[in-house]
């Protein structure tokens, strides 16, 4: 019974996107050759969860800026960034991990793409967001796993 409760608790915490001790901390992520080779969590990403994070306005909200033919059922795809159609043909998972974690490491400081797993952020961060990343390490892994399915 105790075990079951523990499992449920863990599942709940994971759902809330909290950081785990095993996760690579945002400032410890190794960017080399515009790539991050190692998984941020050591756990495989879930493409189904990644698709949810991609779409969810309170999480990745990636669709706000990127068109995605795979989500043609959803209205209002943004055009600020490039479309993600066939993104897995253009980038390796390690490169996608670098782009999602901190796009400025790949595209330079001028890119408007937020760093979803970075604490190098703008001034005057809202009190409830201070010291927090936009996505958890596992959510980044899930998004990377989802993007890796987008082949043309």
């Amino acid at each position, binding site marked *: 019974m105790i075990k079951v409760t523990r499992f449920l608790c863990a599942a709940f915490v994971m759902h809330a996107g909290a950081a785990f001790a095993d996760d690579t901390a945002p400032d410890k992520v190794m960017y080399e050759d515009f790539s991050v080779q190692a998984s941020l969590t050591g756990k495989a990403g879930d493409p189904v969860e990644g698709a949810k994070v991609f779409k969810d306005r309170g999480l990745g909200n990636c*669709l706000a800026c990127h068109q995605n033919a795979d989500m043609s059922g959803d*209205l*209002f*795809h943004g055009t600020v960034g490039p479309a993600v159609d066939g993104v897995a043909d253009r980038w390796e998972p390690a490169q996608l991990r670098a782009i999602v974690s901190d796009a400025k490491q790949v595209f330079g400081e001028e890119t*408007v793409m937020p760093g979803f797993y970075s604490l190098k952020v703008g*001034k005057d*961060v*809202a009190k409830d967001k201070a010291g927090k990343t936009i996505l958890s390490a596992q959510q980044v892994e899930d998004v990377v796993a989802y993007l890796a399915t987008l082949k043309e």
Partner: protein
Amino acid sequence: MRHSLAIVGLGMMMAALQMPLTAQADPVDDALVIDDLEMVTRTKAPEGHPFDEVRSGWLYREAETRELEADSFQNPGMLYVEQGADIWNRIEGPEGKSCASCHNDAAVTMKGVGANYPKWDADAKRPINVELQIDKCRVENMGLEAYKFDHAEQKALTTYIKNQALGEPVKLDLSQGELQSWWDRGKELYYTRTGQLNFACASCHEANSGQYIRADHLSQGQANGFPTYRLKQADMVSLHNRFRGCIRDTRAEFPKAFSDELMALEVYVTWRGTGLSVETPSVRQ
């Protein structure tokens, strides 16, 4: 003939290739006429401006929204203009004065005002906008208190006063007092990234103006239509309310209304719309 067709064909191919990257809907090529008065919605940018052409946000809105603004009988913002007219003529406070007691007919005395603010306030040694000028009159001449920020009457009276300048081209005199240094500070803030999302004003309204964020067609972020009737909020929205909303959306703490930061930003952002007609009350989504 064949040559030109080939060029058209190539153009279409290139357009098709670019589609996924830049499915950018250009601002419409349409004329805004309000009460028989044609508004300047596109004009050559002043020297030192990042764009060649400054454009009204009206050009970026959907057809229904554009029509609402073009028709004064349909424009919901005109109700606030009417309320503002009542406040203008209403005697209030221990001095027994109304705005009209000193300023008479707003159609005459306020005609250019909305196009030329913010101005330099030599007493306060900082810029003053229409809201703060109203407060100054209330406190110094009427024996009243300043309005609380975004008080319904503050919004209505500001809307009324700015509406008197409908069609007048925005033009600030930056040589007044130290206004130029406030412009400099505003410019710096315009390019300063804030919040967890790490966006500056320029990230959306300069680098990506014309693009879509979800359903929102990013305009140049001009101030010439404020206070604006915002359909999303079904209410008049003041410029400083909108500034705060934008900064909040970057997931940042935001400055107080009429703070030094936001007054500097108002000076700079208003200047970026130099030459556009005052459109108050504009209608936006």
